[in-house]
């Protein structure tokens, strides 16, 4: 990032980072193809997110590549999500408890790797 460090609440427009449970570290992101975003309503970091997510990456990966804390990235993505600029694939684990079928799918996948 070309500009100097700024405190996280500046990047996020002063909004609270709390209470945003919809996005998880492992939520997957993809910029909506062909989306046109008004540059007046998004900031530089959000443009970088849209550029990076032209293909599928997790919240954690985008944060690491952009050098932002995950908590900050979640707020940026939340806005883009609201704007309809980014697609969010929620974690594969839907419930309080992981369903047996999902664990078995993980196991089958791991065993096929070697």
């Amino acid at each position, binding site marked *: *990032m070309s500009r100097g460090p700024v405190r*996280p609440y500046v990047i996020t427009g002063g909004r609270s980072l709390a209470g945003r*449970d919809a996005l*998880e*570290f*492992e*939520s*997957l992101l*993809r910029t909506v193809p062909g989306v046109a975003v008004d540059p007046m309503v998004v900031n530089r970091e959000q443009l970088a997110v849209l550029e*990076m997510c032209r*293909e*599928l*990456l*997790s919240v*954690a*990966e*985008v*944060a*690491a*590549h*952009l*050098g*932002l*804390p*995950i*908590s900050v990235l979640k707020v940026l993505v939340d806005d883009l999500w609201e704007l309809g600029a980014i697609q969010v*694939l*929620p*974690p*594969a*684990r839907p419930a309080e*408890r*992981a*369903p*047996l079928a*999902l*664990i*078995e*799918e*993980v*196991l*089958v*996948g*791991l*065993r*096929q*790797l*070697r």
Partner: protein
Amino acid sequence: MVSASSAEPAYLPSSVQGAVKILVTGPFGVGKTTLVGALSEIDPLRTEETMTSVGEGVDDVTGRPHKATTTVALDFGRITLSSRLALYLFGTPGQQRFWPLWEDLSRGALGAIALVDSRRLEESFDVLGLLEEQRIPFAVAVNVFPDTPAYPEAELRTALDLLPGVPILTCDVRDEDAAHRLLIDFVDHLRVGALELS
């Protein structure tokens, strides 16, 4: 500070529909990052989270005032399991002062691998207590260092005060094949646990 990675990100196949995560936890220096690196298909990535912890008993030894900002580095990796499913592995510090981060990290996790250095068992007490308290399915994995004494499992189990259902696995986390077998054994343990509950 960690600088932003300049390399082109390694994207997931566009067919992937969702991801799951498993935590790799344990005390400082136990080998979490090594294990994540041995398992990950991408070069492990790092993010830094800032935590503000207030209060009594936290970080007393530093002699700092009651409010402290701590930066936590999270190392993580990825395995694409199939055309539709990906797995993320998060190296998660186990020290008590990082617990505020656990809520976010553990939500939705399939489970946790608690890495233990059998030469320094007492350093794992905190994190084992936390895993039990949060009811996260977990297994203990003893990282085998060159001078690791070979304790009988029963002795380790007693020293760590583990419940009977918690398996003790062993692994040299630098060995990719051994790390892979460890992960399979762990997920198989999760499967058995889910089977019993279903």
